[in-house]
């Protein structure tokens, strides 16, 4: 019998960890600013340059890490419940391939080309939008492929997700052979994921998606619990199985598409975090909420590591999450009770 701490204790612990990580994220940067100046700047006091660095660069970046990490983990938790498959991750249903195609098509069309030397593709609002459209298009194709007689079929959902991602890779390779190499480099950077494109606008947009998805997913927690028994038995317990599946599908896709649009393809957060959280709770309400917090902590910490390991050079945060995530995942698998 393992001693099971109640879920709220984990919630408090994760919240504490998140605040500490956020603080670290705000204090670290290419310009060194004293901790108390950072705190004063947050409140709008101090010299204008410092205020601008803290409130327009560091704060949006830290908050974007919270939202993207949280969104990916929440999306993964919802998809694992929907598919009844602990291997599901947010990119399974074509989101990554679709977003990549959207981004590449966008950049080949010249969107974001005027953004200057250092900015790459992130400073343009047009490219996140193109990525978002690409992701939604892919998700839509997957959804159509997986519908049979008005029902969303779990097995087909998985298969058509794999197929659409494969199709997207083929289109990518095709397009890349036309693209000029300098664009290819920024594209590869995008593929690895980065939070460098954080703007207050991106934070606001993602907040809306996250709030909307939480509002859709949390009332489904009981349905997800019952779906552990299988769809048929869940239906006999009074669960609206099709409604629950469709809602989860839409919310999980929106979350992943929005996260990818602003931060590129950051791996492992959506797979690792729900897995880890399942170790401490089996109730889906706690699972969804703790996944969000856990994903936020993981990505803020990863971003701090990505920025400070070889400062002032910055490593792609997706490389850090994979470097941290893959061994952690293997450890979780080995330690499975």
């Amino acid at each position, binding site marked *: *019998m393992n001693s099971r701490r109640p879920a709220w204790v984990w919630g408090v612990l994760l919240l504490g960890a998140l605040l500490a990580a956020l603080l670290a994220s705000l204090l670290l940067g290419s310009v060194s600013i004293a901790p108390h100046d950072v705190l004063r700047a947050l409140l709008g006091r101090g010299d204008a340059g410092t205020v601008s660095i803290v409130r327009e660069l560091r704060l949006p970046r830290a908050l974007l890490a919270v939202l993207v990490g949280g969104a990916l983990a929440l999306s993964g938790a919802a998809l*694992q419940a929907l598919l*009844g*498959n*602990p291997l599901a991750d947010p990119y399974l249903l074509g989101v990554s391939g679709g977003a990549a195609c959207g981004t590449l098509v966008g950049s080949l069309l010249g969107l974001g080309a005027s953004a200057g030397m250092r900015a790459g593709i992130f400073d343009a609002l047009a490219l996140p939008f193109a990525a978002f459209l690409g992701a939604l298009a892919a998700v839509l194709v997957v959804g159509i492929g997986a519908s049979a007689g008005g029902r969303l079929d779990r097995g087909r959902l998985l298969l058509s997700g794999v197929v659409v991602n494969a199709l997207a890779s083929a289109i990518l390779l095709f397009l890349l052979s036309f693209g000029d190499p300098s664009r290819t480099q920024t594209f590869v950077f995008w593929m690895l994921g980065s939070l460098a494109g954080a703007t207050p606008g991106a934070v606001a947009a993602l907040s809306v998606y996250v709030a909307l998805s939480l509002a859709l997913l949390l*009332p489904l*927690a*009981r349905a997800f*619990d*019952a*779906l*552990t*028994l*299988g769809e*048929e*038995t869940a*239906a*006999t*317990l*009074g*669960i*609206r199985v099709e409604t629950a599946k469709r809602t989860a599908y839409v919310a999980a896709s929106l979350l992943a598409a929005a996260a990818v649009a602003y931060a590129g393809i950051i791996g492992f957060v959506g797979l690792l975090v729900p897995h880890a959280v*399942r170790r401490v709770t*089996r*109730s889906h*309400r706690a699972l969804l909420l703790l996944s969000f917090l856990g994903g936020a902590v993981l990505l803020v910490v990863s971003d701090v590591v990505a920025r400070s390991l070889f400062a002032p050079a910055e490593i792609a945060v997706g490389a850090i999450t994979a470097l941290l995530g893959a061994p952690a995942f293997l450890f979780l698998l080995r330690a499975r*009770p």
Partner: protein
Amino acid sequence: MTVPLGAEGLAAGYGAHDAIAEITHMFAAGRVTALLGENGAGKSTLLKALAGIVPARRGTVRLGGRPLPGVPRREAARMLGYLPQGFEPLFPILARDLVLLGRTPWRTAFGAPSARDHLAVDAALTEMDAGMFAETDLGAMSGGERQRILLARVLAGEPEVLLLDEPAANLDPRHRFLVIDAMRRRAESGGAVVFSTHELDVASQGADDAVLLSGGRVLAAGPIADTLTESLLSDLFGVSACVTPGAGGRPLVSIGPARAR
């Protein structure tokens, strides 16, 4: 209150094929009914159609006199308890948590389980002699132990109608009788119990009535004294059957080698 369950001209199936057809039978309150038949005879499909999982293609299922599709979802979920055949948990889950899922129709969307929920879960675990597994993960259990937990999940919902697909599967003799007792108790308190089985002793010891299914249609139906007969059973299964009077007026069935039908 009694909630009789009835099928009228019921047909249901998958793809182009009707797995069951022309099923008309009243599953009376206060009775335990065994569904008997070969593999693929339509026992599971009939249970699923009665539970509302597989829609009726023709005919109707009536629950308490009302057509089943017209009964509000939650009300139907409280009245009907369904045990599927074979189950692999998708995620690790503790026995107690799984049994608590049986309380779903009684719970609100948010909020912790009530004292009433916990009582029902404990009672169901005890009735299935599974209290000692309450804090064990389902994946760490034997097939029979798991089966008792799954049955406890159905009982915890306190349904008046029980639809059980092979409830005695994988159980040792003592626990098989535990399940028979549980079914009989539900019938004695006015519930209707329908279960499928391949074990003729479970049918003869547990059931009041039997419905013999062959090729998706009713071959015979009625009290076990009239349906668990040598001629009907040997017709149904293609084996030689020997029926002798047993204790308490229940027939003792033994079966012999396969024979031509």
